[in-house]
């Protein structure tokens, strides 16, 4: 096993473990900190899969900006620990079983098709290559559209969170 593979499995284990803490933890603030650990180890996984640009974006945008926003709201609303036990309704159980079956089928199809595919050797998406594709005519208009989306989200967030006087 190469060093890359060993590191991949270490970070994958950390990601799964902290994701379980996110779901299992009853206090939202602890969930948020566990989610930061998940996002940072996923960033390492992205780097090991040959995507340094996305790995950096993951830390800056997700673990940085978005999680700070989450923690800001958690502190603002001074949330409490969940007191009531988790829901165990009949419909929820049936949905869980159905979704579990979908997951099993999904994993099965991944494992079945794994033998056919071969990874491109030495794949490494440098920032320059990704940027050249991002600003090529194929994605340029989508990129410009996202700036309008961000502006709309900014105005919408201010309008929603503002207290009506």
């Amino acid at each position, binding site marked *: 096993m190469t060093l890359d593979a060993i590191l991949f499995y270490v970070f994958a284990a950390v990601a799964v473990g902290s994701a379980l803490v996110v779901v299992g933890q009853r206090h939202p603030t602890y969930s948020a900190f566990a989610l930061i650990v998940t996002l940072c180890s996923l960033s390492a996984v992205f780097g090991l899969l040959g*995507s340094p640009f996305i790995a950096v974006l993951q830390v800056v945008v997700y673990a940085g900006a978005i999680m700070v926003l989450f923690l800001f709201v958690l502190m603002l609303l001074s949330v409490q620990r969940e007191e009531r036990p988790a829901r165990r309704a009949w419909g929820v159980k049936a949905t869980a079983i159905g979704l579990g079956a979908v997951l099993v089928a999904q994993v099965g199809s991944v494992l079945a098709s794994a033998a056919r595919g071969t990874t491109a050797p030495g794949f490494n998406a440098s920032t320059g290559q990704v940027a050249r594709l991002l600003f090529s005519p194929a994605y340029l208009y989508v990129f410009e559209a996202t700036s309008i989306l961000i502006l709309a989200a900014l105005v919408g967030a201010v309008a929603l969170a503002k207290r009506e006087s």
Partner: protein
Amino acid sequence: MSAGADLATPALLLSAGLFAIGVVGVFLRRNVITVFMCVELMLNAVNLAFIAFSRWRGTLDGQVLVFFVLTVAAAEAAVGLAIIIAAQRNRDTLDVDSFNLLKW
């Protein structure tokens, strides 16, 4: 990196596992902010699938799609948290079951 170190398949399995954990969280948790964080976890699992397929196929389109998913996730988090603040102001609680104003 040698061609033999094929990490695409374990990465897809990790993606499926993280997505499943996110779905479980959405169904299990009552606090609306925790539910929202589980949605973010699911978005990340999808990003990982994009990266794994990008590596598998040797193309860069997956990387660009992840970039757009990150952008939309940032916008979604800003608007979603603003909605949560507004809902908390109206109902004085963060329990998802209490947000039933639009229920028929």
